[in-house]
């Protein structure tokens, strides 16, 4: 795991040199090269994210938390991950305004996913302190 950082850094350097080589002749292909590098990096890091998430699921099972809550949390992390990837790729093309909109939509979706948890929280509170 400590050696793989060298791999990541060297691939980043090689990709940036190749992009510089192509930039003024074929900007579209240079951009696709950037996208491919970003995709490789995210595909690389998801293996380690997976291990961390397995730990989260394991802890949730040990603590007897309802599996729907854990799954909602995982889906929220997944939405933010995908939105981050998309926003990064679009930002690389220089379209900052579209990147901001992607992030905004991701936030709205996260909010929508959190609604059932929030509802159950309110119901629990009302059960503890009944409104007469």
């Amino acid at each position, binding site marked *: 795991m400590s050696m*793989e950082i060298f*791999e*990541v850094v060297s*691939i980043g350097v*090689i*990709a940036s040199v*190749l992009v510089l*080589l*192509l930039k003024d*002749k*074929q900007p*579209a*292909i*240079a951009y*696709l*090269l950037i*996208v*491919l*590098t970003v*995709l*490789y990096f*995210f*595909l*690389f890091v*998801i*293996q380690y*994210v*997976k291990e961390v*998430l397995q730990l989260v699921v394991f802890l949730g099972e040990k603590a007897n938390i309802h599996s729907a809550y854990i799954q909602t949390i*995982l*889906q929220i*992390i*997944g939405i933010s*991950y*995908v939105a981050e*990837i998309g926003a990064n790729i679009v930002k690389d093309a220089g379209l900052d305004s579209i990147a901001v909109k992607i992030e905004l939509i991701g936030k709205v979706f996260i909010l929508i996913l959190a609604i059932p948890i929030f509802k159950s929280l309110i119901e629990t509170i009302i059960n503890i302190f009944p409104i007469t």
Partner: protein
Amino acid sequence: MIGDTSILFQIAGIGIIVAMIHTILKQMGKEEYAQFVSLVGFIIVLLFVLNSISDLFQEIRSVFFYKG
């Protein structure tokens, strides 16, 4: 642990060759063929990238959005 990275060099090679053909065709005065070659090179590279995107999304779906 990063997968096959020779694809980066492959794409850079495609880009350089396409740029060369583009320049040569332009010198010969065949502007429309030059544009066409650029487009074809772009589409070939786009296919590689689409494959990679689909791999990534499949992986993300299996990690974060599994049902059950």
